[in-house]
């Protein structure tokens, strides 16, 4: 078994996922990343898998590879997600399905396969990604927010099911961060969102990293089933 702590992060090609991969690889974690397309992040502590997080055989093959190579998995960051910003009356059902497949099924699959490996050492930290769109009931984000509400429920129930295995499951609910995910959102919508926060500014990668660091800490062993929102939502 590898002596280095091993972390799996989904959606590492760009945005927050990329930033997290760079940070944790730089800190000495062995980081496994995945995304649909190849990554140009090159680091001795980083390995990339090209897959869709809702592709069961591909996810299983990746986790088998991690088990055989490292024999352990300490943390899973379920960052991969897609957004659909549109009035419900204009949202194609195919879009709704795609959002649920990635955000809900993808998160579930990675949690399931990761926990199987984590439980061998009776230790694991899972961090899922929700959104402030859930508590704020953001108009134009019905499907996206519903998928993230599902992620929150998954988080709370998995926290209970995985607790006897030594695995904690928490979620972070970031506010808008300037990445591709919110690129298509009109400026006035973003400003209206910020106005509903106690602290009306965009999130930064460092804000998200801080919450994840908290969940990962060895001292956070009694923290599970929680969702922490940014911005004072």
């Amino acid at each position, binding site marked *: 078994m590898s002596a280095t702590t091993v972390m799996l992060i989904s959606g590492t090609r760009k945005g927050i996922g990329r930033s997290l991969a760079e940070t944790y690889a730089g800190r000495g974690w062995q980081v496994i990343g995945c995304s649909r397309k190849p990554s140009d992040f090159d680091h001795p502590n980083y390995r990339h898998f090209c897959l869709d997080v809702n592709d069961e055989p591909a996810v*299983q093959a990746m986790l088998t590879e991690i088990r055989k190579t490292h024999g352990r998995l300490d943390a899973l960051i379920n960052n991969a997600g897609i957004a659909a910003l549109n009035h419900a009356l204009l949202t194609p059902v195919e879009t709704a399905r795609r959002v649920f497949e990635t955000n809900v099924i993808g998160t579930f699959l990675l949690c399931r396969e990761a926990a*199987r490996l984590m439980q061998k050492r009776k230790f694991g930290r899972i961090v899922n990604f929700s959104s402030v769109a859930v508590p704020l009931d953001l108009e134009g984000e019905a499907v996206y927010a519903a998928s993230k509400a599902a992620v929150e429920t998954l988080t709370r129930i998995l926290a209970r099911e995985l607790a006897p295995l030594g695995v904690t499951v928490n979620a972070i609910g970031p506010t808008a961060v300037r990445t591709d995910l919110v690129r298509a959102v009109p400026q006035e919508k973003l400003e209206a969102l910020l106005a509903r926060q106690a602290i009306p500014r965009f999130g930064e990668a460092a804000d998200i990293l801080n919450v994840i660091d908290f969940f990962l800490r060895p001292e956070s062993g009694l923290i599970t089933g929680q969702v922490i929102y940014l911005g004072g939502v």
Partner: protein
Amino acid sequence: MEKEEVLALVLEAVEEWNQQADEEQRLEVSPETRLLGRNSKLDSLGLVNLIVLVEEKLADRYDVHLTLADERAMSQERSPFRSVQSLAEYAHLLLTEKK
């Protein structure tokens, strides 16, 4: 693959389970060992763990990911998880269908 080969894998999984289990949940390494019901030493989480170990061993040996607790298994009148022997038979059946 032969039935005996799959049974041997399930028995290996039982041995591996015994290494990580608390004493009261350790199982006899035998085809007759009960996995479900009053005569089983396993609690529900113990059974989940054992099934995960068996699935892992099958994946490593045959390069195929099986879901042993599928809908068919859950709807059978006699659960395929009642004993080591029946679990091995069910795994063999699923493997044969998948190959």
